[in-house]
């Protein structure tokens, strides 16, 4: 069930409104550390990106934060991360075939070469939660929604009973990540189907007008269902809301709440995933 349906309706009503680009002069704020990355329970090399905030209209990629000391700990073992191109990339990788363990709490510790916002020490923690099995997925074309129809991607899985569960769902089209920005990722709690068998809920609505990203018959579609923490669920939701501001439905804009200490921005998350594939018919 989608609490954002009213927004969809409002957007349709306001389709008639007009827009024009404007020039605004905005102030600056102090520079903050940005953490963006995750680890999973599947073996692999995982990357943490460190960058710095900039002025809103900076119009260049976030400056990279290089030469930091980054490590990961599960409370007993410490795993060092190394910068892929030292002094240049700002991307810090785990050892190859690193695999998180379900039920453990992982903390990312960062020491910066020089102080940012008054400190060199940052950390972020996330629990790694086990995920239910994604049984199968299905694609359905609905010509009646929108101008050229929509592709619906449906999910089949058992929601584990007895707990509040939070899900993140990613999609791959022909092995390429379709949910390539955080705003396309789907997140959901189980408020509406707690403990039920999820018998084909629509997870993605893909607009067939968007030729560059719609589905075509014969495509291989893979879904990744991940169990995430409440904090990460809230974070993704807030990021998705931070982009839209429709006066009718939005509250006052506010800073997204991540899990990085000392006023850092962004999120370090840990999760486990289950996959299922189908061929578009």
């Amino acid at each position, binding site marked *: *069930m*989608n*609490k954002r*349906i*009213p927004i*969809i*309706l*409002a957007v*349709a*009503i*306001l*389709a008639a*409104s*007009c*827009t*024009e*680009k*404007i020039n*605004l002069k*905005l*102030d*600056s*704020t102090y520079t*903050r550390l940005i953490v*963006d990355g995750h680890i999973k329970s599947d073996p692999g090399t995982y990357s943490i990106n460190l960058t710095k*905030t*900039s*002025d*809103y209209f*900076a*119009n*260049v990629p976030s400056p990279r934060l290089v030469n930091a000391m980054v490590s990961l700990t599960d409370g007993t073992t410490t795993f060092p991360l190394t910068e892929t191109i030292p002094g240049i990339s700002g991307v810090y990788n785990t050892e190859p075939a690193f695999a998180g363990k379900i039920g453990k709490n992982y903390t990312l510790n960062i020491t910066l070469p020089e102080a940012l916002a008054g400190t060199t020490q940052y950390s972020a923690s996330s629990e790694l939660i086990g995920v239910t099995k994604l049984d199968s997925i299905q694609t359905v074309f609905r010509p*009646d*929604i*929108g*101008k050229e129809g929509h592709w619906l991607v449906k999910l089949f899985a058992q929601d584990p009973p007895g707990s509040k569960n939070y899900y993140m769902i990613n999609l791959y089209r022909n092995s390429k990540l379709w949910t390539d920005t*955080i705003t396309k990722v789907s997140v959901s709690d189980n408020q*509406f*189907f707690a403990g*039920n*068998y999820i*018998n084909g*809920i*629509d997870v993605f609505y893909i607009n067939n007008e968007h030729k560059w990203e719609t589905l075509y018959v014969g495509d291989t579609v893979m879904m990744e269902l991940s169990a995430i923490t409440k904090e990460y669920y809230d974070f993704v939701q807030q*990021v998705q*809301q931070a*982009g*839209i*501001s*429709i*006066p*009718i*439905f*939005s*509250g*006052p*804009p*506010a*800073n997204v709440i991540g899990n990085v200490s000392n006023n850092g*921005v962004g999120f370090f998350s840990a999760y486990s995933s289950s996959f299922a594939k189908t061929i578009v018919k």
Partner: protein
Amino acid sequence: MIYRKFLLILLILLSGTISVTAQKEKSKMFSISGKVTDIQNGESLIGATIYITEKKTGTVSDIYGNYSISLSPGEYTVTISYIGYAPVIKTITLNKDVSLRVELSTRQENLKEVEITSEKTNKNVARPEMSTFKLDMKTIETIPALFGEVDIIKAIQMLPGVQSVSEGSSGFSVRGGAPDQNLILLDDATVYNASHLLGFFSVFNNDAIKDVKLYKGDIPAAYGGRLASVLDIHMDEGNSKVFEINGGIGLISSRLTVEGPILKDRCSFIVSGRRTYADLYLPLSSNKALQNNKLYFYDLNAKINYKIGDNDQVFLSGYFGRDVFKNGFAGMQWGNGTGSARWNHLFSSKVFGNFSAVYSDYRYRISAGGSDVSGFQWDASLKDFGMKGDISYFLDPNNTVKFGISSTYHMIDPGVAKGTGTSVFNEVKVPKNYALESGIYAGNEQKIGQKFIVKYGLRLSLFQNIGPGTVYHYNSNYFTTGSSYYSSGKIFNTYYGIEPRLGILYEFNELSSVKASYARTNQYMQLAQNSTVGTPLDIWFPSSPNVKPQLCDQVAAGYFRNFRHNTIETSVEVYYKWMQHVIDFKDFAVLLLNDSLEGQLRVGKAWSYGAEFLIRLNEKKLSGWVSYTYSRVFRQIPLINDGKTYPAPYDKPNNVAIVLNYKISRRIMVSANWVYATGNPLTFPIGRAEIGNKIIPIYSDRNAYRYQAYHRLDISATLFSKPKPGKKFTWDLNFSVYNVYNRHNTWSIEFTQNNADPNVTDATKVYLFGIIPSITFNFHFNHE
């Protein structure tokens, strides 16, 4: 228990006034009383002036047209007048109680007399009432309107001290208050959501409405329950003399009203309907997605009144309206229903009573997916059942006592969502809330000498949460730590408020006066809404063990001066308001289908102040008003904006409204209005972070920036059919242009990533309406 205490206080208060005045009644007094009605349709005239020339004193008729004035025996000249009507002058020998029913006429041939007799209509100077504004339908109808749809709320938004919350919205802020701090009454029933079509139109169909009065402050003791204002709207009573059909055809909607006598001069009815047909154009749209959409609203108003005898009149009235929006995928509908039954009784020539039973209902439904597995339906509603009784006692020429009691039972269903068809969705239910809101009041308006009038009253309000109910407990971080359940019928929480209402008037002379007032108000029901504009998804929630009642103290003072035989009224008012326990919401608050909604609230204080300058014109040809308002409103709420003071969303310091209407001839009338307001305060991004290939804004302090100033000019011209006495069919044709100079006023600013270069961020202004011309045809038919 508390009730008994209230009654006791009330009794003490009443007996005090009566004993004081009883001593004065040494010489014998007689009363002149009766009713003022419109000769054409028999409807009562509210606020007509009854003036006694010899005594230089007078009174005004109440909302049922009744008046009473007590005088020592003698010969008196009584002038009964009402704006737009020819006055009636009677000479009365008062040696016993006199009943005087007066019928006033608007007939053109009589209008000349109005000029000659320059009768006294200096109510705004002489009445101990400030911070109010009364509008009749005739005035509202002359104001150019969006899509030609004449609208009460849009007219209200042009008054000094009133701000619209956003372009096109039916929400309004009075002297810095939030939109949910306005009590909107339709024939005594609360209207919880006054918006149609996301606010572009209000629920009030002009054809069915008689008049509107807004109290921005100095709120009479008879009203309570909201902090900022009372908007008191009365429906037409129906013509008790002849049958009438009124209608209108516009670009967006059509209206039809039928009224007439059931028993001549005794019983009449009115039925009025309106429906929009914007959706009929949708199939013509080139956008296929829009073609299957349904988007409309309708309204029905009905009222019957029956004069049982000279002393009793009964009214039954109702309103029902719905908005429907549907597309192939989802649908939404919402609307209000209200019903009122009122009995108006004259106990004697000095004691008037009104007793009413009211019902009000607001509900919405969202559904999607039909019988699909993803199908669901979501319902929420709010119902009120209320009773009230009000008594006016015209003790003597110097004292008018009013007292009354009211009680309303609120039933709130914040939301139930469940799957439909083969859906896998569980039912998600937010527990219902029940509460009883009561008030008891007494007040006196007392004239002291020739120059002073004082007004003092006290309202005691009581709010009780009644089981079944679940109350969550929260820790200092607003996380739930547990809950308590209360069984059905149990009163598990009680609040009461002592609300003094005071006013004083000093009249320098017939043309000028100063006034001051103080009012305390409590609010126990509020809206869980954190958007600036307002949505149909209204959830009202009551005060509770976790939510303290909101409280407001307002002081105001003003100078009032009339010119040119009262055809020009001017005033300056200043006010200051202190508000406690005002509510804002935490960042990214989840307000819908959330059973721990109270954990999303953040509570603090607010204050507002301002000055309102008004010139109101009532010349024969030129009418309208010009106003300038300077006003500020701030909030300080722990945990919002790091506890720092911030401007409220309705803080728009400078505000100008010019609303003018000019009658060129009997057949042609032109109108224009121009509004100017400082831009809404907004929070803008001042930094950015890239996360997951998306640029995330880092925001300024709350409301640290502003939109550009808002201003707009609207004009209209109306052509009337040839006036001919005895003509049965008349019509008028109205052309209007909204936003004449096509200003693109900002409705919102969106910050987006550029499609071509995702590193570039753009600010895009959204505006709703450019220049919009429209045409409306109205007709009127009466059958003698």
